[in-house]
């Protein structure tokens, strides 16, 4: 490989052609501060507007300071990263950015994990000259069911715009206006609710400031926990246990399932259940739906649509309701695990406990912000009472644990309650891209062939590649499977399906990079994609560690069908566990 030699802060370094000064400095252990820049290398996303001008360095022979994030190294280049000129310029620019940023840090939801705040600390900013008479750019606050936009705090790093457009192709956000009033916003600066936003939360996941944050459901949870007339049930999604530890300083990829259960018990939840149980249930319903559709298709019924698309991801559901309204009959009608859990908890479990549904409060802990929107959709309510009352993110749970004075890292491992806390390895891998379809394959294979699977690890379905495909041999019947994570990848796949160019039988789609482990509600990765990989590893390790690894073998699932539902896709199952979709393509966005 062709290389380039240069010196940075008087130290020689040799880097491949095309390397930026910022990355070259990193190899020397020199961390040039960056604010707008973000490299999600594994996702093929690099946000590099060179707009914040914090990463500027002095390059000998150049008239102006250069942004190291987007300046390529050249032979013989002499770079200085901390001359007086650079330090003064960097501080002055930082003061400028702060002069147009609200100073409510103490009460800001991002306080403590704000990249702007960290930068102010790093650069030793002590005052903002002229703040008394500096005009600030202010905008309307926007409260959606999942995401709060407080763009007074926007610093125009454009990361959210990159995620929403380049990675997710949702197109809800764009830079608007010009100059001092420029900001990232939906069309006509309307609320997100009136935009094609799917609430995937990837904008929140990358926002360096408090401009984009999640709607906080914890006060409502605290109130429910304190209400003696309520039985409060919690369910935790598979990806949460693989990331929660990060909020308590544990290494990324540390599974904290047992500690999490113990903590939830200390918080005072009456029943600690697992969304994984509902994931197993999803496999029963979705797997059966796949086999039914497949069977009809093979027998020549042209009215049956294939491929079947997974429907557990609410960001993805929102995406196809907005963009593929002509294909609403293609996705599985199975509800997401969160909603299946809620429906079962407020019927089957309520009956078992002899309680009315109004006496139960179902709280979900999710790696996801779209789940907040999902749980308040009208079709998931009975007489106005939602199946799932509140959905909190992994980050909110961590906060709740801290606020309840729990020393998390020292907690013993505890077990989920039964019956809705028992799960299999198949349900745990729901948290990673390819996991749902792998779990479905394990069950569908055995149900279809009547044979026992020799090999449970379908590694061909795993990985971080945006779009993947594999053919699984169902005892002579080749089943073509497609997988996409990230809505931009989903769009590519779906466009092909729409044109009839593919021969997939089943497709799994997750809105977020890496699947739920990279969800918008997870601890912030600050652009470090190695964290996503570590979480994925933890998920698969949990699966391997389980004795039961196939959903249809979950004894409590078997019992649920025996006692309550009958069989998969029964009338009762249909009523409780399946849903329908809406055409949102013509939603009136200007009111």
């Amino acid at each position, binding site marked *: 490989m062709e290389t380039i030699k240069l010196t940075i802060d008087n130290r020689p370094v040799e880097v491949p052609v095309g390397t930026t000064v910022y990355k070259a400095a990193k190899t020397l252990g020199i961390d040039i501060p960056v604010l707008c820049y973000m490299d999600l290398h594994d996702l093929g996303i690099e946000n590099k507007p060179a707009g914040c001008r914090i990463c500027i360095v002095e390059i000998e022979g150049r008239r102006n300071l250069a942004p190291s994030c987007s300046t390529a190294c050249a032979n013989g280049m002499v770079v200085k990263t901390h001359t007086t000129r650079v330090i003064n310029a960097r501080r002055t620019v930082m003061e400028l950015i702060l002069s147009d940023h609200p100073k409510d840090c103490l009460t800001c939801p991002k306080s403590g994990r704000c990249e702007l705040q960290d930068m102010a600390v790093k650069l030793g900013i002590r005052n903002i000259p002229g703040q008394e008479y500096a005009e600030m750019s202010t905008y309307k606050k926007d409260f959606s069911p999942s995401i709060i936009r407080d763009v007074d705090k926007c610093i125009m790093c454009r990361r959210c715009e990159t995620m929403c457009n380049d990675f997710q192709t949702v197109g809800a956000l764009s830079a608007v206006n010009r100059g001092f009033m420029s900001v990232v916003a939906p*069309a006509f600066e309307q609320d997100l609710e009136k935009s094609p936003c799917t609430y995937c939360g990837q904008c929140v996941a990358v926002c360096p400031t408090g401009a984009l944050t999640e709607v906080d459901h914890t006060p409502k949870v605290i109130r429910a926990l304190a209400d003696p007339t309520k039985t409060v049930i919690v369910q935790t999604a598979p990806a949460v246990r693989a990331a929660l530890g990060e909020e308590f300083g544990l290494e990324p990829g540390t599974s904290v399932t047992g500690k999490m259960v113990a903590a939830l018990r200390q918080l005072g939840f009456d029943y600690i259940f697992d969304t994984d149980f509902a994931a197993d249930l999803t496999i029963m319903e979705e797997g059966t739906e796949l086999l039914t559709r497949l069977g009809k298709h093979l027998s020549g019924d042209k009215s049956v649509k294939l491929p079947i698309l997974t429907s557990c991801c609410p960001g993805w559901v929102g995406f196809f309701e907005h963009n593929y309204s002509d294909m609403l009959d293609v996705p599985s009608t199975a509800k997401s695990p969160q909603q299946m859990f809620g429906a079962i908890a407020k019927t089957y479990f309520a009956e078992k406990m002899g309680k009315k549904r109004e006496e139960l409060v179902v709280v979900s802990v999710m790696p996801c912000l779209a789940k907040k929107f999902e749980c308040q959709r009208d079709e998931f309510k009975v007489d106005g009472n939602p199946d799932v009352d509140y959905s909190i993110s992994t980050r909110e749970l961590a906060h709740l644990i801290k606020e309840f004075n729990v020393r998390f890292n020292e907690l013993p491992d505890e077990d989920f309650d039964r019956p809705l806390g028992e799960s299999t390895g198949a349900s745990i891998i729901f948290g990673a891209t390819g996991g749902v379809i792998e779990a479905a394959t394990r069950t569908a294979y055995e149900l279809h062939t009547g044979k026992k699977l020799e090999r449970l690890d379908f590694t061909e379905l795993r990985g971080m590649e945006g779009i993947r495909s594999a053919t699984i041999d169902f005892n002579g019947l080749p089943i073509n499977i497609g997988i996409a994570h990230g809505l931009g990848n989903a769009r590519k796949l779906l466009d092909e399906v729409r044109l009839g160019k593919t021969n997939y039988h089943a497709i799994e789609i997750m809105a977020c990079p890496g699947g739920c482990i990279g969800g918008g509600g997870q601890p912030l990765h600050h652009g470090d994609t190695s964290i996503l990989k570590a979480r994925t590893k933890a998920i698969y390790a949990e699966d391997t560690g389980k004795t039961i690894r196939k959903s249809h073998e979950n004894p409590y699932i078997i019992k649920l069908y025996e006692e309550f539902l009958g069989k998969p896709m029964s009338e009762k199952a249909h009523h409780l566990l399946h849903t329908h979709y809406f055409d949102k393509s013509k939603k009136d966005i200007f009111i």
Partner: protein
Amino acid sequence: MSHIKVELKKEQVAKLKEICKSFNNEAGELINVLHKSQETFGYLPAEVQEIIAKELNISVAKVYGVVTFYSFFTMLPKGQHPISICTGTACYVRGAEKVLDEFKRILEVKVGETTPDGKFSLSCLRCVGACGLAPVVSVGEKIYGRVSPDGVKDILKEYE
């Protein structure tokens, strides 16, 4: 930007689609499409932007991002007689600011606004290239040169 709800007639929608089509529905032609649409409709209300976005297969947010970037595009209908005061440097040093102040005072509107009766809208533009006539004011297509604050009343009288 404030919004006025507009119902587009079928013919108007068809006209917009025709404009987009005349540029091969290419996203790269967005600015030309917006020019043509504004020429046709006088301004670019949200509804017009929506249709353009759909036809060119780009997000409405992106279209709005472009519309709000360029000062030539407006989402508000202009007055019957759009008044523009040149605030180029040549006009500035020859007193354009005082002329502008006088228009603002008499019409009781700010720059970028339209009088409540819809008759006049007030805007600034940078250099029309008639610096010999500075300060310059244009009302619609008509250009007035060497305008003094005293002359503002007389200009407005022509349109009463």
